[in-house]
Structure formats: structure tokens, C-alpha cells
């Protein structure tokens, strides 16, 4: 359970990135944390990990206060940053030095994940390409079997086949006891992967809803033409007509398009808040 209550945080005292932000998340979700560049996605993840401390407010993660960075808390959470760090060690050596800190680490899973992500033992980790290093760290993080996994821009630096493998792997390892946060601005990489969306912008949470709830309240469709309507939140012209995001008044079934959802919400924050209130 992640509880954030009235969180205020800023890198400068006078300029707060988050002001009085509150959020409650039950375990058992793959959450997509979306936001523009500089919206504070990584900052939020760092606050949850205890790398940054709230200026005001309170954060509790599974009953722990992250800023204390207690080992009993840290063994339950793993954060994969956008830029990964690997020392000049072999895969085997890395595993022998780092895995003992994670009691639920599973060596067989680790080998299987490396295999699934096409990471081969090619000597020292720091000689791997950036994408290979990232896939190695993702495999290690998954094998640690922590209750909370925070992935900051995990698909940055991965090639197209690797992105697909990553999505497949995340879907396969997910169980109800885990919470996986995926922070990204590459929204298409999260298609069919996440079951909850959090959108942050200008220091506030514009949306925190499950995919089911979103598809109940909004409809995503393509139309040859459209007329301006108060129920339409967003429209984007393409070769075959318009992609439209509107209020789902007729209870239509439609597939959530994360990119259009993001644009609809950032363009109409007040209206969306009313819809999801």
C-alpha cells in the first residue's frame, strides 16, 4: 500500500514541484505514470524510494517511511533508473555480490529473464551496450521479487524487439502482491500492459484511474468528421479522419488509447477532474 498525503516537494524552497499532493494505491497493479518532460515523474518515484525527502506531507510505503531508508524497507522496493549503473563485473560476479541483499532473489528466474531479454554473458558488464546494460538491470530487478518495482523510462534505449520482450516479460511476472510503477513519456510502450494510469502535470495529479474506469467514462473512436461538442475532449486529425476522445455517455466499449488519453487530459484538466470525481 502506497499512501501519499499532502506531499509538497521542490528542488528549490520557493518553487514547489508538488504542492499538497495526495495519492493512495493498493497493491496489485501495473501503474503507468505519465507526464510531460519535467513534470516530476522521476521525482515522485524518488520520493517513494526515499532518495528525496518531502518538504511537507507524509509518504508511507507498505507501512515504512521511505526517507529512513531502512534495510527492511529497501529490500521490498527496487528502482530501475533511466540511466543505469553497472560496475565492471561479470554477470555471475554481479549476482553474487548484489543478490544476497534481496532475500527473495531467484537465480533461476534471473537466468530465465536474461535469456528472454537476449542478454548474453559477454564479459564485463560495463562493456555491454547501453540497451544490454538496461536489460540486464531490468532482469536483475525482476528477479529480486520485491513487492514494489519502480521503472523509470524502462524502454528508453531499448530496440523495438526488446520493447516487445520487455512488455511480455512484465505481463508474465506480474502477480497480485506486486505493484509495478512504470514512468514514461513513451506512452505507446505501455499499451496493453498497464491496468492503472496516473497522469501528473504542473505539480498535480490530473488522473488516477484504472483502465476499466477510463473506458467506462471516456470513449475513444475514429470518425470521418466531427462537430465541436462539449462532450468531446480531444480530436486529432489523421489520414482516415479524426481520432476522438469524448465523454462516454452511451456506455460504448472502446479501447483506451493512452496517447490520446494523455492529450485529452492535459488539455482539459478541469473537465476531466469533474468526469472522474
Amino acid at each position, binding site marked *: 500500500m502506497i499512501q501519499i498525503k499532502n506531499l509538497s516537494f521542490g528542488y528549490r524552497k520557493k518553487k514547489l514541484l508538488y504542492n499538497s499532493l495526495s495519492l493512495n494505491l493498493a497493491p496489485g497493479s501495473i501503474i503507468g505514470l505519465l507526464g510531460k518532460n519535467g513534470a516530476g515523474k522521476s521525482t515522485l518515484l*524518488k520520493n517513494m*524510494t*526515499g*532518495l*528525496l*525527502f518531502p518538504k511537507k506531507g507524509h509518504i508511507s510505503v507498505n507501512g515504512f517511511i521511505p526517507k*529512513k*531508508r*531502512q*534495510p*527492511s524497507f*529497501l*529490500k521490498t*522496493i*527496487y*528502482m530501475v*533508473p*533511466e*540511466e*543505469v*549503473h553497472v*560496475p*565492471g*563485473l561479470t554477470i555471475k*560476479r554481479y549476482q553474487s*555480490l*548484489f543478490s*544476497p*541483499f*534481496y532475500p527473495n532473489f531467484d537465480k533461476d528466474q534471473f537466468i530465465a529473464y536474461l535469456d528472454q531479454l537476449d542478454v548474453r554473458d559477454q564479459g564485463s558488464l560495463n562493456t555491454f551496450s547501453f540497451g544490454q546494460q538496461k536489460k540486464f538491470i531490468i532482469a536483475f530487478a525482476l528477479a529480486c521479487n520485491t513487492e514494489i518495482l519502480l521503472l523509470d523510462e524502462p524502454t528508453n534505449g531499448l530496440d523495438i524487439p526488446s520493447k516487445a520482450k520487455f512488455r511480455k516479460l512484465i505481463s508474465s511476472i506480474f502477480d497480485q502482491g506486486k505493484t509495478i510503477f512504470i514512468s514514461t513519456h513513451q506512452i505507446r510502450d505501455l499499451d496493453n500492459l498497464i491496468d492503472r494510469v496516473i497522469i501528473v502535470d504542473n505539480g498535480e495529479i490530473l488522473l488516477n484511474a484504472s483502465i476499466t474506469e477510463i473506458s467506462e467514462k471516456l470513449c475513444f473512436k475514429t470518425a470521418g468528421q466531427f462537430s465541436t461538442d462539449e462532450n468531446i475532449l480531444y480530436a486529432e486529425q489523421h489520414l482516415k479522419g479524426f481520432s476522438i476522445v469524448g465523454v462516454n455517455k452511451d456506455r460504448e466499449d472502446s479501447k483506451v488509447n493512452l496517447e490520446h488519453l494523455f492529450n485529452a487530459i492535459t488539455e482539459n484538466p478541469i473537465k476531466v477532474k469533474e468526469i472522474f470525481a
Partner: protein
Amino acid sequence: MNDIFSLKRFLLFLKKTLLERPVQMFGFTVLIFVSVLILYAFCKTFIGFGPAQNISFIWGFAGGGCFMASFVFAYFSTNASGLSYLTLPASHLEKWLCGILIAGILYPLAFLVFFRLMDASFISAYRSSLNPRDPLYKTQYASIFVFPFDGRNTWKVYSLSFFLSGSMLLGSLYFNKVGFIKSALTVCLICIGGFGLNWLIAVLFFGNINDAAPFDHVTIQIGNEVGSIEPPKQWASIFSYSLAYVIPILIWGLSFIRLREKEF
């Protein structure tokens, strides 16, 4: 689970720290030892044994200690390595003790062993090069002796090293990038600032100052006469004791607080 200290976790962390960057950690130590060896050989040839021992000991013990101290927490130069270090499940105390053990105990001990071996080898080579039939043999033989690790000046080096290493350790937790240079500059600025301020205050009081050192003395020139004003012995010893022990202990302790409060 003990969140403050677990011996098993500490040993795992120490092992990880030593073996994670073996080339840097051990290569760095070897590099310092080689530089000490070269410095010793150079000074012995051109200045003599005594200065060679003193200079190379100060460089290796205090200088090398500073390098090592700034290295043990040098994880914060990149976002990824700093994050990896801070989120690894070990307590602040274990992480701090690991740094202290490497910079404050293991390196100095390794250096002392190396220095004694090097010093003894040079002295042995010197003594065996002497001619026993030479009338000055005994004098020459006895004129060179191994560097004493418990001498008065050696203790001053220990004390200086304790202070400087602690400062570098603390500095490496404040300055994420080029921590060694920034810490060294800060220490220099504080020392220069302290001396400068002391000198300014002394000038305000006396005017005709020759030199002044904080809490130690003020030398005044009146005509051709030079006199030194010193604090009472009790105060002077309190200051020297503080400088040698209290301030370094505070600095090393502050590094623990800084590590605990480190945001990254």
C-alpha cells in the same frame, strides 16, 4: 530484521564495496604506494634519509588517506550509481562503517605495513652498502634508522591525516561531482579564511603584526624587538587537543549524519 546493524549484512556490504570496483580500489592503493616509493627514492638520493622518510610518510599516509577517503563515497558522480548505492538494502550505519573501515583503518594499516617494508629495505640496502672497515662505519650505520611510528611528529601526521581524511569523506558526501577537488579547495579556503580572519582581528587590536596563528600566537614587532603573545598553556592545550581529536571526531561523525540525510 535489525535495521541499524547486522554483522552479516555489513560483511556482505564490505565485500561488495571492495570487489565492486577492484581496479579502482586496489589499483588506486598500488598507485599511491608506487608514488611513495618513487618519492622516497628521489628524496633519499637528493636530500637524505630523514627528509625522505618524513616527506614520503606524510604524502602516503595523509595524502593517500585523503584520496582514499574521497573515493569510498564517490558514488554520487552519476545519478545511476548514487541511486544504486543509496537504495541497496544496508543501513546507514553499515554503509558509513564500511567507508570508515576502508579509509580510516584498512588503508592506513596497509600503508604502515608497506612503508615499514619499504623503509627497512632501503635502510638495509644502505647499511649493506657500507664498508665495515671504514672508521666511520659505526657512525654511518647508526645514523640511519627506521622511521618510528610512535614518534612525536608521526603522531602529528596521524592527527593531520585524521582531520584531512574526515574532511574529504564529508566533502565527498556534499559534492557529487569532482568531490576531491571541491573538498580540498573548501578545506584550503576554511584554513586560509581562519588564518586571515585571525590576522585581521590581530591587526585591529595591535597594528604592528608580524604573524599570527589562530589560538596559538601573535607575533608583534616593536622597533627592532619582536615579541610573541601566546594564550595561557591551558587554553593552548585545549585548542591543540580539539584540533587533534575533537574536530576530526566531529567531522567523521558529521559524515554519518550527512550520509543519513543525503538526498539524491
